[in-house]
């Protein structure tokens, strides 16, 4: 299993690319695109007022104006996924409760079980009232192999409580879009394995990214406390 290394060289590239063209990225960083730190809390994005939300009635016409989506909500993604039970699933189905989101693939034998264990440890470290609300989503980056049936088999093998854990199979374009908004990078290798970020993302009830944990086997107590302060509001 391979893990992501975001090399220092990549940071240099930003400068390199900018210098070569005499231009720099024009916008400020959004929550979804901050280069993940080992532990990243993003309270400003979660609480920032949103001047764009009212423009999206066309895409989300069913929502009353009072419930318009925040501009930085991942619920703007409209792809239809399938759960491990084969049911259709939209990311906006997560609306109303906070969620832990992890992207991985089931053939992965090293990092992915650790990622699941980390998500489990994070959930268990949360205050009890928040833990009861928290939804946990595992979205596969390997749609060719990870069919709903395969995901169901994997959930059983990993002893995941599917009342609270949802495993998702999506079309490759929807997978790539979700990865893009979460800041998960992945690439399929010639042998069918994937090189990918080890990233746990926490969403508030409106689909805004409020916290990230990057890397494996981190202590979760401080992470859980930070999340409780953000999501519990």
């Amino acid at each position, binding site marked *: 299993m*391979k*893990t*992501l*290394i*975001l*090399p220092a*060289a*990549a940071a*240099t*590239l*930003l400068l*390199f*690319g*900018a210098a*070569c*063209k*005499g*231009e720099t*990225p*024009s*916008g*400020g*960083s*959004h929550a*979804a*695109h901050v280069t993940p730190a080992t532990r990243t809390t993003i309270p400003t994005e979660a609480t920032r007022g*949103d001047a*764009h*939300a009212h*423009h*999206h009635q*066309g*895409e989300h016409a069913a929502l009353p104006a009072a419930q318009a*989506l925040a*501009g*930085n*909500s*991942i619920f*703007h993604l409209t792809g239809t996924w399938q759960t491990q039970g084969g049911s259709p699933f939209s990311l906006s189905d997560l609306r109303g409760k906070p969620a832990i989101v992890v992207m991985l693939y089931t053939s992965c034998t090293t990092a992915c079980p650790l990622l699941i264990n980390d998500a489990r440890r994070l959930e268990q470290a949360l205050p009890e009232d928040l833990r009861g609300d928290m939804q946990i989503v595992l979205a596969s980056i390997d749609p060719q192999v990870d069919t709903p049936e395969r995901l169901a088999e994997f959930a059983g093998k990993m002893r995941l409580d599917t009342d609270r854990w949802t495993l998702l199979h999506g079309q490759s*374009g929807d997978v*790539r*879009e979700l990865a*893009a*908004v979460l800041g998960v*990078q*992945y*690439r399929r*290798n*010639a042998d069918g394995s994937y*090189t*990918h*970020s080890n990233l746990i993302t926490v969403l508030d009830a409106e689909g805004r990214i409020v916290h990230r944990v990057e890397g494996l086997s981190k202590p979760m107590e401080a992470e859980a406390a930070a999340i409780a302060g953000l999501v519990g509001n």
Partner: protein
Amino acid sequence: MRTSAIHIIATAIMLLGLLQAAAPEARAETDDMVTVPAGDFLPFYADGNSAQSVPAFRLDRYPVTNAQFLAFIQATPRWRRDAAPPIFVDKGYLRQWGSETQLGSEAPANHPVTRVSWFAARAYCRAQGKRLPTQTEWEYAGRWGNTSADGLLTAEAVERQIRNYANGSRRVEKDVTTIAPDKLGLVGMHELVWEWVEDFEASSVVGGDRGKDGKTEALFCGGAVLAATDSRDYAAFMRYAFRSSLQPTHTLPSLGFRCAADIQ
């Protein structure tokens, strides 16, 4: 008899006129994409020296223009610059346009559209029933039209690419119809703007094992030229490095895109 002959001639002239009138439209419709033939592609960087097999695909002949993107915006208002949510676009999105629905003097109709995010580019392509090309597809196509029989970039292509990239954002001050096509018929792959690809971040996703043996650095640093498959292809280093610096919401004044499609 005489009347019939006149009728036949008149009908023939009318049909000819119709054919002539229809021909440019038909040609425009069928010529807007180029078929890129299947083949093997060896990335510029040493990656086990294994060539990647690229199936044939279709690629837009031209980068998407301001006029084309405006038509998309008019049909899909949620992608207007005052409507697209910040999770999909940064603050520079279409900033050079005169207004939400007008191009203005800074965005001539036939110039490549720029200041569009990866999400916006994907949405445009999807609306056309197309997709963004992968990085491998783009690089393969961009090289195909500029190589000699030995598979290496022609000296003229090397010089032209470097010259164009060195010109920075001045490249965008060109009408797409004024650029000569390459051998494949593709226009402006190296002369106009940087272009989004579907997996633009692929180069920065590097496995730990590669980091340990130094190949991470081999992708980006100056020393990589020693291991490159074609050390003269310095412009490729610039493209891979540039893509690796991007975030999907970024909008830049010399970054545009063109769409691809599978061959059914």
